[in-house]
């Protein structure tokens, strides 16, 4: 059957002495392995670098520099008639409060015996060199305090007001003496003064809760900018996504997995879903702009519209994961239900769906997390560029009034000219990532807790 001859005896070394070729092959093997380790290392390195950049740049946003000043609320300025009539007090504009703050700073300079060219600064007038130390919003804050409690007038009150973003940056190391050389917003003598006042406990850094709860501020007041309103905007959007995407996604999955006949229409739906999952998110933005805003005239910048767009974007993700969890419920469960005379619909809703629920919820949470971080479609429906400076009043307004969203707010800050906003943007990313991490951890816990092995 075979005419092969006995193979010629190959000269083989013993097992213990490797030949040159094997050594070469093993070197190649080690190199290859090394490449793999380098690749994994590179991936991890990028992750660490990214996280380091985020934390080191953004942690500053959670602290804010403020002045603690003893302000004399002079009656002759704030309430000339002297009868504490709220209308009269309201008539005094923010502008009038500025000299009070300036005087308070000068008093600190004198009280601490500081030698500074600024001690000759004007108290009255449109602007003063001392103003550069404080936030533009400081006078407004003082006014609000007085309006809330007119009894303060005539007394000397200790108030805490925000420092200007340059002073804040100086305390955080972002602003240096070199960097302010060409900066008209702050001079070296200001920094000298801040150094001394800091020693005297007048200026200091504190925890900045306003960054998380506060509203966005205009270009000139980065020290006041917070993301509270945009967090609400994101919250209302996620509510829309959850309320629409979960029921629709589950219903669509049940149909496709349990009831759909094998025909071309079903195929069409399936192909559609898998393709929609890979359509660039910006295209969903175009869809939202054309259909929801141009065609249906829904309000621009509204969380409702953002939510609708994100729903359409998230649906494929939710459908795909829901179908996977429905598929993992073994057919024997369906057979058992059908065997006791349940209808197919009852078998699905009473038995299959509850068993698949943990998986469905896990998929939904992951889809929501994806939607929460999405920015590109929001650009097109006007959620970027809107200054989120007011809290929505009420639930209806929460859905329909123009608002921003967390990622849109971050983008907005990143676009602004003042580098002080960059710190806010990084800080915003920390907040966003904390939300995302929380959602993902919740999903993992759900999966661990309810994971079922059939």
């Amino acid at each position, binding site marked *: 059957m075979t005419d092969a001859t006995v193979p010629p005896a190959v000269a083989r070394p013993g097992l*213990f002495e490797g030949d040159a070729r094997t050594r070469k092959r093993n070197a190649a093997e080690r190199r290859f392995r090394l490449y793999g380790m380098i690749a994994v290392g590179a991936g991890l390195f990028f992750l660490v670098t990214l996280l380091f950049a985020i934390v080191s740049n953004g942690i500053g946003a959670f602290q804010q520099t403020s002045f603690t000043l003893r302000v004399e609320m002079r009656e002759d300025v704030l309430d000339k008639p002297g009868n504490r009539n709220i209308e009269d007090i309201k008539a005094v504009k923010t502008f009038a409060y500025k000299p009070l703050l300036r005087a308070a700073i000068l008093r600190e300079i004198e009280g601490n015996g500081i030698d500074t060219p600024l001690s000759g600064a004007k108290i009255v007038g449109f602007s003063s060199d001392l103003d550069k130390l404080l936030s533009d919003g400081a006078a407004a804050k003082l006014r609000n305090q007085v309006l809330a409690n007119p009894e303060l007038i005539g007394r000397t009150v200790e108030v805490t007001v925000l420092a200007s973003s340059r002073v804040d940056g100086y305390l955080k190391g972002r602003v240096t003496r070199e960097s302010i050389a060409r900066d008209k917003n702050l001079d070296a003598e200001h920094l000298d003064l801040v150094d001394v006042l800091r020693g005297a406990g007048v200026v200091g850094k504190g925890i900045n809760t306003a960054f998380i709860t506060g509203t966005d501020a205009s270009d000139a007041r980065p020290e006041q900018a917070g993301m509270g309103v945009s967090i609400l905007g994101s919250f209302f959007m996620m509510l829309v996504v959850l309320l629409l995407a979960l029921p629709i996604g589950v219903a669509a999955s049940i149909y496709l997995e349990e009831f759909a006949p094998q025909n071309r229409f079903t195929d069409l739906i399936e192909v559609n879903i898998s393709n929609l999952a890979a359509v660039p998110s910006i295209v969903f933005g175009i869809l939202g702009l054309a259909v929801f805003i141009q065609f249906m005239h829904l309000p621009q910048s509204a969380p409702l519209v953002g939510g609708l767009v994100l729903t359409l974007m998230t649906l494929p993700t939710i459908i795909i994961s829901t179908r996977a969890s429905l598929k993992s419920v073994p057919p024997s469960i369906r057979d058992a239900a059908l065997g006791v005379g349940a209808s197919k619909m009852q078998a699905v809703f009473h038995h299959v769906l509850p068993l698949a629920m943990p998986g469905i919820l896990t998929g939904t949470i992951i889809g929501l997390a994806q939607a929460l971080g999405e920015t590109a479609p929001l650009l097109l429906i006007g959620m970027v560029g809107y200054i989120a400076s007011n809290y929505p009043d009420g639930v209806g307004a929460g859905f329909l009034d123009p608002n921003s969203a967390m990622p849109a707010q971050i983008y907005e800050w990143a676009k602004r000219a003042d580098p002080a906003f960059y710190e806010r943007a990084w800080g915003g990313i920390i907040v966003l990532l904390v939300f995302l991490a929380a959602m993902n951890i919740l999903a993992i816990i759900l999966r661990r807790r309810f994971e079922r092995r059939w």
Partner: protein
Amino acid sequence: MYDTPKLESETVTDEVKISARGCQVHYGDNHAIKDVDIDIQDKTVTSFIGPSGCGKSTFLRCLNRMNDTIDICRVQGNITLDGQDIYDPRVDPVQLRARVGMVFQKPNPFPKSIYDNVAYGPKIHGMARNKADLDGIVEKSLRRAAIWDEVKDRLGAPGTGLSGGQQQRLCIARAVATEPEVLLMDEPCSALDPIATAQVEELIDELRQDYSVVIVTHSMQQAARVSQKTAFFHLGNLVEYGDTGQIFTNPADTRTESYITGRIG
């Protein structure tokens, strides 16, 4: 057809090729092989028989250190090839496997052409100096595997396109192309139909001329037909090892007797 008497043994040499002493294998917590001692002879077909899960395949995979590829598997004891310990730290498993070839349960040709399947081993081991050499090795190996006539006109066709029996003979050709000294076969016929099985069995008998062949089989008839020596494994123990004729006609151990008469298995 399964009751055909075993092929008569012609040249049983007494030269020991592989020898194991006190071999233990653990799979995680599972003690899969317990203290096995065995001497496998050159130019002989040795068959390992035993019920499923008795450890015969596991032991086979120890002989060319294929178990190294499984993370949780630990091998203890002493196994030598021509007197050299194959688990010695100086031994490169790559070199060892070139000398102890293996054919698997399911035919597993690479998704490449027939030619490339056979040429793969010689290429990685640098056995051919030029294309003509390689062509010679491929042809010789295909002839030894008794498949040359069926594929010589389509060496460029994918190996996965062959029938099951042809695929398994291709895998044998692939294994002999590296000119091993020992050929391990892990249930090589279990995925084949009777005709293909007969062809492969005939081939095994031919291969005995040049190699020490170790075959794991579920079929006692097959063991009786192709092997000169038989080892019976049960629950990780080597129960009995001896001439095939003696094992099947006059087993020493009651467990062996129960198995070959069909009471355990």
